[in-house]
């Protein structure tokens, strides 16, 4: 049962072959047995899940269930969940029980999804390996010596290991797509503003976007359908109609123009990963697509631009954690300044502190023009590259990550090396475009992700392009040994 997708399980639930209660109990048992080796959950919520499953079964029996009703899932621990600990992977919020639900949580609950718990993640979503979590690293189900990617590493590992049918993730510089690639699942980062950020703990507000992490593009379409849409509670939410994502899945790819950016296939890309990605592109040609070489000449500026913009926004967003209103507070503060400094110093981990300090420095008097203003200009250059490219092509393809999952501890002491994991995903966030990762042929038994980048609000096109590939390939069906 746990190997089935949302689409398959939904059909079984509605046909009365099994109940959401049975499915939920099965997955809760799997989490109990298998997750100690992975550490993909920060919190498991059995009571909450069983109550939701019971309600879902009643809805299904009365014929009122939708495609997601009764499907067990895990929420990344960045989404506020009323009455349930919301840690954001940080000691700072280890004691934080959210008084309200994030809009994403509210919408998925209303659709009848069953939350099994909260997924481990890099602290405040800052990381590419899930090693910065206060709750310890997540292990990759394909090889427990390796990282699952990050920051949505717990979400990706749980879905890949069949501990949850689907998960939510968030993506500021690749945090949905890179772990999806490294764990062999399907992940979609929508257009900036497509999914509400309300109740999603902010890292870099001009880049953050939530999306589904699933085992197929079809499943991602069903989840995005519920997650997407205007939310008056998020001032950056976009008031654009939500398309019917499932309806577009079966469109033919004949004549589809795929752009391959030369910059995404150069130095730094593992040759075996490149071969795997090229194999997938050959498959697309067989499906009738046409391949066009393109250039995104400012690609090399993406990582440096991001490491000004994201830390600058993070230093401002994380100033709310002051030891006064919620979260961690140091013991016996001498005065107010000591309260602020020690609460933050003790509550935040190393990577979060590094980024707060970089951001503080970049925004400080005398440096603003050289760093922040210049980065906002190079961000425009990066964005313009895509605007030019999408005049010629329908979708851009390349690798999601320059290599396969690396070993735990391998890069954690070298921030700059770690940052380079996101060289192919960051530009999409800077430009605000939708991006996706789907599994292609593995390398040494470890998953590889193909990245799709679409034009603004082209989520339906990306899902269609991914689904057509998954109809003729089986990579997305591969299960890690032992799960």
């Amino acid at each position: 049962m746990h190997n089935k997708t949302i689409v398959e399980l939904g059909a079984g639930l509605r046909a009365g072959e099994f109940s959401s209660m049975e499915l939920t109990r099965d997955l809760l048992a799997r989490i109990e047995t298998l997750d100690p080796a992975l550490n993909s959950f920060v919190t498991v919520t059995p009571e909450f899940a069983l109550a939701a499953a019971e309600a879902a079964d009643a809805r299904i029996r009365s014929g009122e269930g939708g495609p997601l009703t009764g499907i067990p899932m895990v929420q990344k621990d960045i989404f506020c969940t009323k009455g349930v600990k919301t840690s954001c992977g940080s000691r700072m919020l280890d004691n934080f029980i959210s008084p309200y639900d994030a809009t994403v949580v509210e919408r998925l609950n209303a659709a009848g999804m069953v939350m099994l718990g909260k997924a481990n993640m890099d602290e405040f979503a800052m990381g590419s390996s899930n090693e910065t979590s206060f709750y310890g690293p997540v292990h990759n189900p394909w090889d427990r010596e390796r990282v699952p990617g990050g920051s949505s590493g717990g979400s990706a590992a749980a879905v890949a290991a069949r501990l949850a049918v689907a998960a939510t993730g968030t993506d500021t510089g690749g945090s949905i797509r890179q772990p999806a690639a490294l764990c062999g699942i399907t992940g979609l980062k929508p257009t900036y503003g497509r999914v509400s950020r309300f109740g999603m703990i902010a890292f870099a507000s001009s880049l953050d976007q939530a999306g589904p992490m699933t085992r197929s593009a079809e499943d991602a379409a069903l989840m995005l359908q519920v997650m997407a849409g205007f939310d008056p509670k998020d001032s950056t939410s976009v008031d654009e109609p939500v398309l019917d994502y499932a309806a577009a899945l079966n469109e033919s790819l004949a004549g589809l123009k795929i752009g391959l950016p030369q910059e995404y296939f150069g130095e730094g890309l593992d040759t075996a990963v490149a071969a795997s990605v090229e194999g997938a592109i050959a498959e697309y040609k067989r499906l009738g697509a046409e391949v066009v070489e393109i250039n995104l000449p400012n690609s090399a500026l993406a990582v440096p631009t991001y490491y000004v913009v994201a830390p600058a926004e993070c230093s401002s967003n994380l100033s709310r954690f002051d030891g006064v209103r919620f979260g961690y507070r140091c013991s016996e503060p001498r005065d107010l300044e000591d309260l602020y400094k020690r609460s933050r110093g003790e509550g935040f981990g190393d990577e979060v502190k590094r980024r707060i300090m970089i951001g503080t420095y970049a925004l400080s008097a005398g440096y603003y023009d050289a760093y922040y203003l210049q980065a906002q200009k190079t961000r425009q250059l990066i964005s313009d590259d895509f605007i030019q490219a999408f005049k010629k092509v329908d979708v851009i393809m390349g690798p999601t990550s320059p290599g396969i999952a690396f070993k735990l501890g391998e890069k954690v002491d070298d921030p700059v090396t770690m940052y380079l994991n996101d060289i192919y995903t960051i530009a999409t966030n800077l430009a605000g475009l939708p991006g996706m990762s789907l599994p292609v042929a593995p390398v040494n038994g470890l998953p590889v992700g193909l990245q799709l980048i679409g034009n603004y609000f082209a989520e339906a096109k990306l899902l269609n392009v991914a689904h057509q590939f998954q109809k003729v390939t089986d990579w997305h069906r591969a299960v890690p040994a032992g799960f």
Partner: protein
Amino acid sequence: MSLDRSDIEKIAHLARLAVDQDRLESYANDLSNILTLVGQLEAADTDNVPPMAHPLHMVQRLRPDSVSEQNHREEYQAVAPLVEGGLYLVPKVIE
């Protein structure tokens, strides 16, 4: 751009972060490496390029100035470290 221990102390103070003395060196080293990476932006020709304010060039949405929220003080203060009589308590600020 290279930062030293005293730079880190200054930045940490601005960010209201307590940093252990024995970690200053390693933060200085890490932050200097990050600034070297970021320094690649200097060479980019951005004359006549407007700074990007928003990926979709949206403007701030406005709403009618009417009451839309209810009072949630009790729920919000339930997760606060220290409150009394509806107030958040902090160490004495004014002597």
